[in-house]
C-alpha cells in the first residue's frame, strides 16, 4: 500500500494540514490566524506619519492610474508586463490544500466546512477551484433582488445534492437589510448544521464578523489559510512567473540600492535557498498586507517597474546579490519582449531584471482628508458585503441618492473605491488604510 504522505490519516478539523505543492498554503482554524508583524521602526514611523497626517492632512490629489514615468530610467509596465512578472495565479496549490482539509474534516465526522478569507484573498476563486477537485456541484447565489426583498427561497438549490455541494461566496446570499435578514439567519444556521448534507462554504472575513459577532451565528470551527510571512512571499513571488506565458523566472531588485528583493525561482531549487533572507521591503509588505497573499500581490505589482535598457547590465555589477547599479537609459522594453529578444542577466535568467520601487515611492490611494462619517459608513458597508452593486447601495445605505453619489464619487476619484456598476469594492491598495481608519472610529473590523 502506497502512503501518500506521512501525516496522520485522521486529523481534527482546523489543525495544520500537510504542506501542498509549495508548502505555502496551510489551513488552520480561523481563531489561530496571526498576521505578520512589522519591524519596530516601521511601526513607529507608520504611527508618526499617520498622526501627522491627521493634524496636517495633505492636499487631496487624484491618483493617476495610467502608467507614469517615475524618472527617465524607469517605466511602469503595462498590464501585460505585470501579468508576465507577477501574474494572478490559478490558485491550484491553495485549492489542493483546501481539498485535503475538507476531506480530513469529512473523515473526522464534519459535514460542512466553512472557510473564511479576508478581502482580496481570492477566497471565492480558491473555493470554486476546490469544488472541481472534490467533484462537487457549485450552488449559484440567488437573485439579489429577491434576497433584498426577503422573498428568495434559499434552500431550493440544495435539493438533490447528495454528493455534496459548494457555495463559493456566502456573502452574495445576504444583504445587511431588515427584510430577509431573519430568513437568511435561519437558513445559514441550518446550512452550517449540516441540514443540507456535506458542503463547503466560502465566506468573506468581514461578512463572517458581522454574521457571528452581530447576528450571533456560530460555526464549529471555521478554517482559513495561514498568514504569509516575508519568507513565504519571497518564495511565492519567485514562483509566479512560471505560470505566465512569458519567461519563467526574473530577478527583482530594488531601485534605490540594487539589492535583491526577490530572487529568481531557480535559487529556491538550489542549496543557496537557505542563504537568502528577505529584506525590510518584504517584511513591511507582509505586515502591511496582514499576511494576505492576494493583497500582497496587488501591492507587489504596484511597486514593479521596467528598466528602459533592454541590454543586459555590466557583468561586474549584476552578478552578485549585493550588487547595485541602475539600468542605463536605452530603448523601452517589457519583460515579455525582453524574453523574446533573448536578453538575460548574468544569472542566465531569461526574464531579466524587474525593478522594485522603494516602499514610499509607489503611489497608493489614500482616504481623502476630512472624510465625513457618511463615507465611512459607505466604506464599511462595502467591506461587510465584500463589494456591492451600485443599484443596491441606496437600499443598503441610510443616505439620499444625492449624498450617496457625492460620497461615492469622492471615494472613486481618490482611488479608494474601484469597480463599476456591477461591483464596487474597496481597492486593495487602499484596504489597509481603510481598515485602520474604520477601527479607529469604532466600527467593527474582521479578525484578519
Amino acid at each position: 500500500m502506497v502512503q501518500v504522505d506521512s501525516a496522520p490519516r485522521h486529523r481534527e478539523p482546523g489543525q495544520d494540514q500537510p504542506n501542498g505543492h509549495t508548502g505555502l498554503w496551510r489551513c488552520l482554524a480561523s481563531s489561530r490566524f496571526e498576521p505578520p508583524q512589522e519591524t519596530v521602526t516601521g511601526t513607529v514611523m507608520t504611527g508618526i506619519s499617520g498622526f501627522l497626517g491627521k493634524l496636517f492632512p495633505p492636499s487631496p490629489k487624484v491618483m493617476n492610474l495610467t502608467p507614469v514615468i517615475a524618472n527617465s530610467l524607469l517605466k511602469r509596465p503595462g498590464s501585460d508586463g505585470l501579468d508576465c512578472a507577477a501574474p494572478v495565479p490559478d490558485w491550484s496549490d491553495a485549492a489542493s490544500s483546501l481539498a485535503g482539509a475538507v476531506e480530513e474534516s469529512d473523515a473526522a465526522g464534519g459535514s460542512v466546512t466553512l472557510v473564511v478569507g479576508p478581502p482580496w484573498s481570492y477566497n471565492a476563486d480558491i473555493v470554486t477551484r476546490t469544488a472541481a477537485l472534490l467533484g462537487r456541484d457549485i450552488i449559484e447565489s440567488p437573485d439579489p433582488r429577491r434576497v433584498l426583498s426577503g422573498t428568495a427561497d434559499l434552500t431550493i438549490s440544495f435539493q438533490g445534492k447528495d454528493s455534496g455541494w459548494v457555495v463559493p461566496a456566502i456573502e452574495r446570499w445576504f444583504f445587511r437589510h431588515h427584510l430577509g435578514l431573519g430568513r437568511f439567519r435561519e437558513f445559514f444556521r441550518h446550512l452550517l448544521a449540516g441540514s443540507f448534507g456535506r458542503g463547503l462554504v466560502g465566506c468573506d472575513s468581514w461578512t463572517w464578523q458581522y454574521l457571528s459577532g452581530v447576528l450571533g451565528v456560530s460555526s464549529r470551527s471555521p478554517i482559513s489559510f495561514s498568514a504569509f510571512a516575508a519568507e513565504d512571499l519571497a518564495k511565492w513571488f519567485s514562483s509566479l512567473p512560471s505560470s505566465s506565458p512569458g519567461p519563467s523566472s526574473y530577478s527583482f531588485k530594488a531601485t534605490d540600492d540594487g539589492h535583491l528583493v526577490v530572487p529568481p525561482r531557480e535559487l529556491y531549487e538550489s542549496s543557496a535557498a537557505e542563504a537568502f533572507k528577505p529584506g525590510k521591503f518584504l517584511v513591511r509588505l507582509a505586515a502591511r498586507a496582514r499576511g494576505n497573499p492576494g493583497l500582497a500581490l496587488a501591492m507587489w505589482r504596484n511597486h514593479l517597474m521596467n528598466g528602459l535598457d533592454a541590454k543586459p547590465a555590466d557583468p561586474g555589477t549584476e552578478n552578485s546579490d549585493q550588487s547595485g547599479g541602475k539600468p542605463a537609459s536605452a530603448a523601452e522594453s517589457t519583460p515579455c519582449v525582453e524574453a523574446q529578444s533573448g536578453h538575460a542577466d548574468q544569472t542566465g535568467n531569461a526574464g531579466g531584471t524587474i525593478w522594485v520601487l522603494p516602499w514610499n515611492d509607489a503611489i497608493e490611494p489614500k482616504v481623502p482628508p476630512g472624510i465625513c462619517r457618511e463615507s465611512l459608513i459607505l466604506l464599511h458597508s462595502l467591506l461587510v458585503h465584500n463589494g456591492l452593486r451600485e443599484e443596491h447601495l441606496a437600499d443598503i445605505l441610510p443616505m439620499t441618492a444625492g449624498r450617496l453619489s457625492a460620497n461615492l464619487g469622492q471615494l472613486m476619484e481618490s482611488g479608494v473605491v474601484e469597480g463599476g456598476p456591477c461591483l464596487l469594492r474597496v481597492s486593495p491598495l487602499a484596504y489597509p488604510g481603510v481598515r485602520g481608519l474604520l477601527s479607529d472610529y469604532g466600527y467593527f473590523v474582521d479578525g484578519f
Partner: protein
Amino acid sequence: MKFVRELNTLPVARLLLTILAGWAGIALSQRLLPWLAERLSGRNRLYLLATVPVLRLLILIAISAAVIAMTVEPSVENLVAYLGALGLALGYGLKDYVSSIVAGIVTLYEMPYGPGDWVEIGGVYGEVKSIGMRTVVILTSDDTMVSVPHSFIWGGPVHNSNYGSENLMCITEFLLDPCHDSGAAIRALEDTALSSAYLRHTMPVLVSVEESPFGTRYKIKAYPVDPRDQFKFKTDLTVRGRHAIAAAGIALSRPLATGSAGA
C-alpha cells in the same frame, strides 16, 4: 501698613506680561485642543476634550497666584485684609456670579458633565462644547449654542447620556395597534436595529414592550457608533422600523396612523 506694593516698585511690565501670558494660554488651549480633538477619533477625542477645562483652571490658579504675589505686600495682615474685602464684595454684589463660579469648580471635581458629553440641563439637550468658569456651553440639535450657568446643578438633576464614553443609548419608539403578533414585531424591530449601518455592535440591542392607552408601545434601545450620529441613527431606525413593521403585516396605532397627535 501698606496693602499694595508701591507703584514705583510694582513690576508693571511683568504683571501685564503675566496676565497676557495667562490669557494667551487659556485662549490657545480652548482653540488648539478642540481643533486637535476633532482630528482624532473615538475615545481619544473625548479624553482630549476633557482636559480643556482642567487646563484652564490650572492656568487661572497659577496666574492668580502670580498676580497676587506681585501686587500684594506680603504680610499676614495684608492677606487677611485682602481676603476679607474679597469676601465682602463677593457676598453682596456677586452672589449669583460667584455661585456659578463655585459650581463650575465643583463640576471640575465631581464631573457631572464634560466636553463631548450629551447632557440635558435646565431643559436644554445637546453636546457640551466647552466649560467656562461660569457657564457650560451646549450645542443643541438645531445648531443653537446655549450657555447654561453652572449654578443649575444646585437646583436640579443633570442628565448625562454618555458620561465621557462613546456609548450613548438611543431609544426609538413605535406605537402599534394592539391586535398583532408581538413575537413578529420584536423580531422585525430587532432586525431593523441589527441591520443599521450606524449600529455599535459591541453594545446590546434591546426591544422592550409595554401597553399604553394609545396602543402597544415598542422601544428599540441601541447604541450608535458615534454619539454625534444619534439623530441619524434614530431616523434610520424609525424609517426602516416602520417599513419592517408593515412588511410583517402589523399596523401602527390608529392615532399615529391617521396623523393626529399621539402621546
